[in-house]
C-alpha cells in the first residue's frame, strides 16, 4: 500500500470541500471523504497485519521516499509501524465522528457564526496534518506536519468557539508554538551532530554522545510535552478544550494531544535513550503530579467541558508516566492509553456538545434528570464516564491497567510510590465521574424547558455508535491493539537497553 494515499485522500477532500457550493454539499463531501479515510485506515490495518503475519519483521512497513531538498537533506520519507497504524486509525475515527457531530453548523438553530465551508475546511485540514505527522519518518517533515495544525486550531477555537475564545486560541497557539521552537532547536542539533540527516531510521542507528543527549532530550521532550499537557505546561488544555467548538475539542483532545505523546515516544525516547534514562525520574514525578493534580482539579469543576478538559490532563498523564517508567509493558500501556483516551475523550466531548446544544448550558448544577428526556445520549454518557473511571470491559481499564502493571515491574521504592500515587487518582476519578453522572442524568428535572428536548438525530447517533464501537473494541478484545503496539514498544525498549 502506498502511504501517500493516507495524505492524498484528505487533501482531495479538502479541495472538493473548497469547490463545493451549498452547505449540504460541503457536509456530504466531508462525510464521504472522512468515511473513505476510515476505510483506508482499516485497509492499512488489515494489510499491515497481513504483512506481519507473513513474517515481514522490518521495523517500518510500506516505506516510500521522495526528495524535497538536497541540502539540508529533507525527504518525504513515509513508513508505518504498529503505533502509527493505531494512531491513523484513531484519527480517522475521531475525524468521522467530528464531521458527523458538526452537522448543524451553519443551520438555522445554530447560534454560532455559521461559515460551514470554512469550518469543515479547518477540521479536515487539522486531520490532514495529523495523518501526515503519523506517517512521517523524517524529522523535518514531521515538524512540518506538526506545525501545520496551528492555523486550523487557532481559527477553529477563535471563530467557532465559545466563552473567552480569543484568549484561549491565543494561549494555545503561542504555547504550542513555544513547544515547537524547542523541538526545532532539538532536531537541528541532532541534524548537525548526525552528519546531516533528519531521517529517524538513520538517526536511530546512531549513538549520540551522552552530553548531547542530556541537552537535546529535555528540549524535545518538553517541546512535545507541551502538546501532550505535561505538567506544568498543561495550562493551554483547559482553556483551549473548553472554548473550542465540539468537533474542535474532540480533535484537540483526541488527536492533537496524542501528537505530543507520539513525539515523546518516537523522537525523544527512541532517538535519545540515554537522555530518557537520565530524566526518567523527573518525567515520573511531573506526570504523577499531573495525574493527581488533574484529578483533584477536575473534582472542583462546575462546567462539563472544563471537567473533561482537566480530566484529560489527568488521563494523558498516564501516557507520560508509562514513558517515564521505561519498561516494555509500561510503554505499550502508554501507547494503548493514547488510543484509548483518544476515542474516549472524543466521545466525551461529543456527548457534552450534544447536551449543550439541547440544554444551552454546560453548568452541572443547572442540569438534572436528563435521562428521562434523552436516554440515548445519557446512556452514552454513562458508558464514557465508566470508561473514564476505568471500568473493566471498556478501553480505559485496559490502558491504565497495562501502565500500572508495567510500572510495577520496576521494583524500587521510588517507582512503587509513584505508581501507587498515580493509582490513587482512579478513586478521585470515580468520585467526580459518579457525582457528575448523578447530577446530570438522575434526579428530578430541574428546568421545565428541558421537557421539550428531543433525543439524538441520525448523525449524532452514528458518531456516538462509531466511538462506542472503538471503546468496546479496545476494552473487550484488546489483543489486536496490544499485538500491534508491542513490537513497536519492544524496538524502543531494545534501544533503551542498549542493544
Amino acid at each position: 500500500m502506498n502511504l501517500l494515499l493516507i495524505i492524498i485522500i484528505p487533501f482531495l477532500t479538502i479541495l472538493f470541500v473548497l469547490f463545493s457550493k451549498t452547505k449540504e454539499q460541503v457536509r456530504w463531501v466531508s462525510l464521504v471523504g472522512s468515511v473513505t479515510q476510515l476505510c483506508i485506515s482499516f485497509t492499512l490495518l488489515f494489510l499491515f497485519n497481513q504483512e506481519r503475519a507473513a513474517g515481514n519483521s522490518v521495523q517500518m512497513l510500506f516505506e516510500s521516499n521522495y526528495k524535497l531538498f538536497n541540502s539540508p537533506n529533507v525527504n518525504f520519507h513515509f513508513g508505518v509501524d504498529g503505533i502509527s497504524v493505531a494512531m491513523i486509525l484513531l484519527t480517522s475515527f475521531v475525524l468521522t465522528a467530528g464531521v458527523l457531530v458538526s452537522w448543524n453548523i451553519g443551520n438555522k438553530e445554530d447560534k454560532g457564526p455559521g461559515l460551514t465551508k470554512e469550518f469543515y475546511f479547518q477540521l479536515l485540514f487539522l486531520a490532514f496534518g495529523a495523518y501526515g505527522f503519523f506517517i512521517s519518518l523524517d524529522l523535518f517533515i514531521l515538524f512540518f506536519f506538526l506545525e501545520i495544525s496551528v492555523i486550523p486550531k487557532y481559527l477553529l477555537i477563535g471563530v467557532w468557539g465559545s466563552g473567552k475564545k480569543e484568549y484561549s486560541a491565543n494561549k494555545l497557539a503561542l504555547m504550542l508554538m513555544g513547544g515547537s521552537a524547542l523541538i526545532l532547536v532539538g532536531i537541528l542539533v541532532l541534524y548537525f551532530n548526525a552528519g546531516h540527516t533528519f531521517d529517524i531510521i538513520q538517526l536511530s542507528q546512531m549513538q549520540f554522545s551522552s552530553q548531547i543527549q542530556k541537552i537535546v532530550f529535555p528540549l524535545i521532550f518538553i517541546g512535545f510535552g507541551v502538546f501532550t499537557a505535561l505538567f506544568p505546561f498543561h495550562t493551554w488544555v483547559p482553556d483551549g478544550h473548553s472554548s473550542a467548538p465540539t468537533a474542535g475539542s474532540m480533535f484537540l483532545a483526541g488527536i492533537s494531544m496524542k501528537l505530543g505523546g507520539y513525539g515523546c515516544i518516537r523522537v525523544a525516547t527512541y532517538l535519545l535513550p540515554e537522555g530518557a534514562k537520565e530524566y526518567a525520574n523527573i518525567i515520573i514525578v511531573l506526570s504523577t503530579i499531573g495525574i493527581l493534580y488533574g484529578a483533584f482539579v477536575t473534582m472542583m469543576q462546575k462546567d462539563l467541558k472544563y471537567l473533561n478538559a482537566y480530566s484529560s490532563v489527568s488521563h494523558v498523564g498516564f501516557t507520560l508516566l508509562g514513558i517515564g517508567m521505561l519498561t516494555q509493558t509500561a510503554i505499550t500501556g502508554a501507547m494503548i492509553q493514547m488510543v484509548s483516551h483518544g476515542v474516549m475523550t472524543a466521545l466525551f466531548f461529543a456527548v457534552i456538545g450534544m447536551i449543550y446544544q439541547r440544554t444551552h448550558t454546560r453548568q452541572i448544577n443547572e442540569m438534572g434528570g436528563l435521562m428521562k428526556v434523552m436516554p440515548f445520549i445519557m446512556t452514552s454518557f454513562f458508558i464514557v464516564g465508566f470508561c473514564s473511571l476505568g471500568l473493566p470491559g471498556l478501553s480505559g481499564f485496559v490502558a491504565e491497567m497495562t501502565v500500572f502493571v508495567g510500572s510495577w515491574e520496576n521494583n524500587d521504592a521510588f517507582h512503587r510510590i509513584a505508581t501507587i500515587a498515580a493509582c490513587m487518582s482512579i478513586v478521585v476519578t470515580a468520585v467526580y465521574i459518579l457525582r457528575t453522572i448523578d447530577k446530570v442524568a438522575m434526579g428530578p428535572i430541574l428546568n421545565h424547558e428541558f421537557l421539550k428536548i428531543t433525543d439524538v438525530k441520525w448523525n449524532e447517533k452514528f458518531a456516538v455508535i462509531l466511538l462506542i464501537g472503538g471503546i468496546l473494541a479496545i476494552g473487550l478484545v484488546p489483543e489486536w491493539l496490544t499485538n500491534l503496539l508491542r513490537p513497536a514498544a519492544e524496538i524502543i525498549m531494545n534501544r533503551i537497553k542498549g542493544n
Partner: protein
Amino acid sequence: MSDLLIIMKQELMVIVIIFFLLFVKLGKGMKNETLLPLIQILLLLQFIAGFFFNQTGQLFGDMFYTNGLIAFEKAILSFGVYLISLLSSDWLKQSKHMPEYFMLMLAALLGMDLLISSGNLLMFYLALELATIPIAAMANFDLEKKQSSEGAMKFILSAAFSSGILLFGISLIYGITGTISFAALSHQAVNSTLLILAFVFFFTAFGFKMSIVPFHLWTADVYQGSPIATTSFLSVISKGSVAFIFITILYKVFGQSETVWYWMLVVLSVATMLIGNLFALRQQNIKRFLAFSSIAQVGFILVAISGGYVVATSAVVYFILIYIFSNLAVFGVAEVITNATGRETINDYKGLYRTNPFLSWIMALAMFSLAGIPPTAGFFGKLMLLTAGSNSGNFWFILIAGLNMVISLYYYLIVVRAIFMDKNENPIAPIKISVMAKYGMILCAAGIILVGLIGKIYEYIQSLI
C-alpha cells in the same frame, strides 16, 4: 561590445525603460491606463531576461562583475518591482505623475542592481547612493500629506548620515590598505585596531540600510509617512538588495576576519529580533506594524548570515524570495483597503472577513507566512535561515531565534484575530478590487503556497552558488 550587452543586460533594460518613460513624458504623454500595462510588460520582460544568457564576467576593470547567482538576485528584485506595479495599480493610475514615479523607482532599482554587482568600494558607494536618493523622492510622493514629506525628510537625513559614516569607513580602509578593490581587500585580515574601527563604520552603514537595531529608528516613521507603494519597495526590495551585498562583503571581502564580526552579528541579530518584535506588539497602524515586523525579520536574516557563505547565501536568497511574496501580499491588501476607505489601522480590519473574504484570506495567508507557519513558504524560509545559522554550532543563538518566532506569532495573530474573530459595528464595506491588483495578489498567494513545497526552487538557488 556584445559582452557589455549580455553582462549588463538587466541594467541596460532598466535604463531603456527609464528612457522610454522620459520620452513619453517629454512627448505627447500617454494616459495612465495605457501606459501602466506597457510598463508592466516591459518589467516582466526585464525579469524574464534575468534567466537567459547568464554568464560570469567582469566589466570596467573590477568595477562590475556578475554571475548566475547575481543575475538571479536581480531577477528577484525585478519581480518584486513588477508585483508592486500590479498591487499598487489603483494608486498609480490616479497619480498625476505616474511616469515620474516609475522613473524614480527604476532608478533606485538600477542602483540596487549595480550595488549587487559592484566589485569595488567606489562602485559600491555610488550604487548605494543611486539606490537611496530616489527613494526619498518616492517617499514624498503623497504630495498633499504632511506626513509624507516628514517621512522623506527623515529618510534623506538618516541616509545622508549613514553615507557619511560609510564614506568615513571607506576612506579609513583605503588609508590603511591602499586599495578599494574587493578582490585585493579579501587578502587583508582585519587585525589592526584602526581597521576594526573602519570596519565598524562600514558595518554601521549597513545597519542603517537594513534597519538593524540600534540603527532602526528612522524606519517606522518613514514607513508610515510614505505611500504604500514606496513603503513596500523600501521594505522588501531595498532591504533584499542590501542583504545580498552584505553577505558578499562579509564573506568575500572581510572573510578572513570572521572572528571579529561573528559576535557582532550575533549580538545585533538578537537585539534586532527582540526589539523589532517587542515594538511590533503594540502597533496599531498597519504600516508601522509592518515596519517593526520587518525589523524583526532582518534579525532572522542575520541569523542565517552568521552561518557561513554558502548556506547563508542560499538561505537568504530563498528567504528574500519568499519574503517578497508574503510582505507584498500584506502591503497589497493594505493598499487596496487604504485606497478604497482611507483606513489603515488594525482596528479597522475588524470583521473584514464578513465583507471581504478574498482580501482576508490573502492577508491571513501572508501573516502566517511571515510568522513562519506551514504549509506556507514562510515556514520553509524561516527553517532554512535557522538551519543555516546553526551551521556554526551556536545553538543557544538558534534557541533565542526560535523563541522570537513565538513572540512574532503573537502579533501576527493580532491581525488574523481582528480579521476573523473580532466583531465590528462599522466594518469595511465590500471593496471592488481591480483586475490587476487581484492578479497581483493571486500571484503572491501562489508564491506563498508553492515556493516552499517545490523543492526544486531551493535546489536551483543552491546550484547557482
